Every structure is written in C-alpha cells, then in structure tokens.
C-alpha cells in the first residue's frame, strides 16, 4: 500500500525536506542514521521505492555521500541527510563534489557540538563548517530554512541551485526547524519550478567535459551516454585531464569560486521585515529568526524602530545587502544559536556600524523577550 502524502500535512521539518527532495525529482538517497536527521532517512526508506527511486543505507557517511556523487553522475538527482558528526565524515567528499562539479544536496539538521555534543538539542554550530570544512579554496551554497514549509520549499530550491551551478548545496537547518511540526502545503506539481543541469549538445569528439559556458558552468554528460569523459578530484584542464601546471590550477579554482560568487545575486535569498525605517536591525536565520520576528513586533508596539533581515541563504554570504543595511541603521544585532559565526561575516561587511552579538551555544534559541531586552538596551544608549 502506498503512503502517498496528503497535499496538506501537519508534519515535521525533516519530513518536509524529504518531500521537497522528492518533489524536486530526487530519486537517490544514500545515508546513515543520525539524530536529529533520522526521520529524513526513515521517510525516504518508505517513499523512495514507491517512486522507483532508491534508499540506500550505507556503512558510514563517507560511503553515503560518495555514493551520492556516483548516483549524480548517472543523471539522477541525489541527496544525503545527516548531522554534525556525519558532516565531519563527509567533508573530504564534499571537496570531491566541488572539484568534479557534481550536483547534490546535503541536508544538515544541526545539533549541539563539538563531537557527539547534544544529539537531541539544536544549534547552529556548523555554519562555518559548511563553508570551510573541506580543504582548499572553494565556495558553497548554504540555505537556512526557518519553518516546515521552508524545509520543503528550500530543499526544492537546493536541488535547483545544485543542478544549475553543478555544485553541492547544503540545507542548514537547526534541530528545532527539523523537528518542529507545522502545516505543510505541497504545491501542485505544475507549480513547482524545477531546474535541470545543462547537458552537452556538441559532437562527442568535440566534447570538453570541463569547458564552461559564459555562466561559468560546463554542460554535464552522464555515464552511459555517447560522451566519454574522465572526472577526477585532481586539478584538471578543460579535457578533464590532470595537470600540475600553475595556470591550470589558478584558472580552475578561480572559475569554481566565481561561478558561485558572480552568480550570488541569483542565489541569495533574503527576507526583510520592518526594515524600511528601522534604526536597529536584527540579523538572524533559522529558529532564532522566529524569535527575532516576534521581538521586532513587540519593540514596534513600544515605538522602537526595529527590523529584521532574515537570511534564507547564508552562503554565498549576502555581503552587499548587509553593507547597505549597515549604512541605513544605527546598530545591528546578530542573534545566532552558536558562539558567533555569521556574526564575523556581518562584522566584516557592516563595519563601522556597531554590531552586537547575541550568542547562544545551546538548544533553546534566544527568546523574543531577550531580544526585545537587547533592542531596548541599544535604543536607550
């Protein structure tokens, strides 16, 4: 019997992410169970066979993500889901996916760290890991949903970005977002906009697998097609052949970085709430942004001109938007469920505007009253 979901569900963020992936056309899930991302695996184990897709439970996270890279090269949309300890194991392979320009989605339901930390408590401690965790210079795309609906919508978006830019994409959801239950509306199929990777059209004898088009993204052939190609994590030229030449390294690394950075406007997704006349701005993402929204409503009731810049994407970092905001407000508060990670990015983009960090390396986010308190403190200075 099929367990086809209703179009309207009362469900948790993890399951919404899984359904979002399926709606995006994901038909391969490789994973290893870990709290608080296990529900994604469990949902996929039930749903994938119904859609003639595959749920594969591997011996570890290294195999999981590497298999996802393999699946992606057959033209199948593929993903994995895990939490901090699992991401730590996957980091080398993320570099391989970046270097071989492999579209894939990695959902990280963030729990308390370091190490085994607090498996059942949320945190936002892996934001910098997503950006810098694998070795070498590279860019990543990181989405930060804040609701069950956004877990669905932004997982679809994650696949679209992965396909468009041929890159691994992180969905970075704190445990609260992963485990909270809310209403989810699954749109009609025809209303879900899907992007698929570019495929080569040239004659196979002329195919250069790593020669980019003007958008800096090369068309991608798949295994079993008429195109022959060799893909390697070694630095390679446009033919895909390994090279230890300096100019090849510089050209490749520059292009891999630029294809994200130069398309940042297309990737970045921000929500502005009550910012038009704001003097104090809060910057937040994920669960703390929900508290911040409430705090701003309260502050406004008390006549304080406060607003929220909610980051729905953290990578590439919205440097220009934050710099512009910093010229418009007198003070910025960054509320994060960690010891301050995006804070450092805000500081470098927003200087010399004063920037205050509300840090919280634990499961309960900053409560609205705490943020109101901070806003009032700053307002009365």
């Amino acid at each position: 019997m099929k367990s086809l979901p209703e179009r309207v569900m009362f469900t948790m963020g993890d399951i919404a992410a899984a359904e979002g992936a399926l709606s995006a056309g994901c038909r391969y899930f490789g994973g290893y169970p870990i709290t608080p991302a296990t529900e994604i695996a469990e949902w996929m184990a039930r749903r994938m066979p119904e859609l003639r897709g595959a749920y594969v439970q591997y011996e570890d996270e290294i195999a999981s993500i590497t298999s996802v890279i393999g699946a992606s090269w057959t033209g199948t949309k593929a993903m994995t889901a895990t939490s901090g300890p699992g991401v730590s194991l996957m980091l080398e392979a993320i570099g391989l996916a970046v270097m071989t320009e492999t579209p894939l989605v990695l959902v990280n339901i963030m729990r308390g760290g370091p190490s085994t930390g607090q498996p059942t408590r949320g945190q936002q401690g892996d934001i910098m890991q997503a950006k810098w965790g694998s070795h070498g210079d590279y860019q990543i795309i990181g989405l930060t949903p804040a609701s069950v609906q956004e877990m669905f919508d932004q997982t679809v978006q994650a696949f679209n970005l992965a396909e468009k830019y041929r890159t691994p994409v992180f969905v970075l959801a704190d445990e609260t977002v992963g485990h909270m239950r809310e209403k989810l509306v699954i749109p009609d199929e025809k209303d879900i906009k899907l992007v698929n990777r570019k495929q080569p059209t040239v004659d196979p004898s002329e195919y250069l697998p790593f020669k980019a088009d003007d958008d800096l993204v090369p068309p991608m052939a798949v295994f079993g097609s008429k195109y022959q190609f060799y893909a390697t994590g070694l630095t390679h030229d446009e033919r895909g052949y390994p090279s230890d030449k300096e100019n090849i390294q510089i050209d490749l690394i520059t292009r891999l970085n630029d294809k994200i950075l130069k398309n940042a406007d297309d990737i970045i997704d921000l929500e502005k709430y009550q910012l038009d006349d704001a003097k104090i701005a809060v910057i937040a993402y994920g669960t703390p942004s929900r508290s911040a929204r409430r705090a701003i409503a309260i502050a406004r009731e008390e006549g304080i001109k406060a607003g929220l810049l909610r980051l729905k994407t953290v990578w590439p970092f919205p440097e220009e938007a934050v710099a512009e905001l910093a010229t418009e407000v007198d003070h910025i508060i960054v509320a994060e469920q960690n010891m301050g990670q995006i804070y450092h990015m805000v500081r470098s983009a927003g200087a010399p505007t004063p920037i205050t960090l509300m840090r919280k390396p634990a499961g309960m986010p900053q409560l609205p009253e705490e943020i109101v308190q901070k806003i009032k403190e700053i307002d009365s200075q």
Partner: protein
Amino acid sequence: MTTVQKTLSHPMAKYIREDRLPWIYCPGCSVGIVTNMVARAIDNLGIDFNKVVIISGIGCTGRSSGYFKTGSFHTTHGRAIAFAEGVKIANPDLEVIVISGDGDIAAIGGNHLIHACRRNIDMTVVCVNNFNYGMTGGQFGPTTEHERYSQTSPPPIGNYEHPFNLVKLAASSGASFVARWTAVQARRAARSIQKGIEKEGFSFIEIVGACPTAFGRSNRLGDGVTMHKHLLEVAEIQNGLPPHEAELDYDNRIVCGEFVNIEKPEYTAVISRMRDRIEG
C-alpha cells in the same frame, strides 16, 4: 615517392585515451598489464563500451581509470566502491568496474569492500595487490607480509603487522565471485575478469603484481622482469579450492584460481523486485 609510415597500434588501444600516453607507471610495474587485462575482458565480451563505467580510488593503480576512453571517475582515496555503488544503484544498466590498489581497497576503503560484498551488488572489483602503497613511495599496507621492509617498516625490524588475505576477506564477506591471479597470468586473469563482469553479483579479482620501484627495492626483489618471473614461479593454480585455503606466501607459494562462483540474490535486482511488489 613518399611512403606513409603506419605505426602498428596495440589491439586494445581503441579503449585507451592515447592522447594521455605515456602513462605515469614506472618501468616494470604491473598496473599497465592489468589495464590490458580489463580491456581484453571487455573486448572478449563485446559489450558496448559506452555502457561501461570505470572507477578507481587514489594510488598508482587508482590512476588507471583515467586511461580508459569511456565514462571514468577518479574518486577520493578508498571510496571507489562506494562511488560505484551509487552509480550501479542509480542506473543498473551500466557495467561498473572498479580498479584500485590494495591500500585503497583494503585499508582506507576496507569497510566499503566488505559491505559491498555483503550486499552482493553487481560490480567487478579488480584489486592490484603490490604489497605496499606505491604512489606515496612504498610504505607498508594491509597486505604487506610480516617483517617485510618498507619506508615505514624499515630494517632491521620490518613490518610489525600481519596481512589480510584478500581472497579470504572477500569470500567470507559475501562476494559471489572471487579469484586471484598474478600479473603474469594475463590470459587466465582476463578470463576471470570477464567472468566477473558477466556475473550478476559482486566479483572480486585480486591481481598480485610487482612494484619494483618501491616494494621491490625495499626488499631486494630485483627489477620488474625478475619480480614478474618470480610471480610465475610461485604461482600455483588451484581452481575451485575453498577460499580459506587460498594461501599467499610471497616467497614460496601464491595460490591462484577461481575460488568462489555462487548464485545469490543481487542487490539492484532485489530493489527492483521490491518496487514491483509495492506497485502490485
């Protein structure tokens, strides 16, 4: 009158990216021979080469995938089998072949090897066992014999550890086809690779090879020719021997042959049947 000089090309050259030659291998290395074995096996089978995917990990052997003119992939160290599983499961119509070294397959990738054997997923793994980490300059690895010398097990003590017997490991982990040959038994090895490709299930073929530059030099085993001659001398063909008797004693006796060839449900076929069952 001008004469056109026609160079004789190797019969397997059609499978090889000739524009990448000469390859990286040292004189006397076995990896080139194994590359030829795999090409022969594919040629004998007459399968559509575009449907063949060749995957390797990191190491000298790991470079072999890059010379094949089909879809080929050079993964991270130890993860060739994991990558191959993703490929095969996502598109079971593809013929998936992994070629990699003993370190890649049995040390850093050992966990993936045993679990892929257990799943009995249809792929052919060709492991070149040269008893050391060739690419990094000859350190001991998971197949280096006790007391052998290497860059990290120097004289006078040699290797503290004891080796895996890869045939026993693969067989006891659940592979449905397991064979071992030396690099000099090229025809028999190619035939086993061919059988492995045909087999619906996980096939593991160990090719005992020579690394004169590193393992050979550390242990004074002579040049490539001498090492390959030695392999021929000590190879003992025992087809059908129970895998737990397939001993490998480098100096005296390397038992070769096909040791496992059994029928059991294959992973992607099982997945496909399960899906049909749901659809009812």
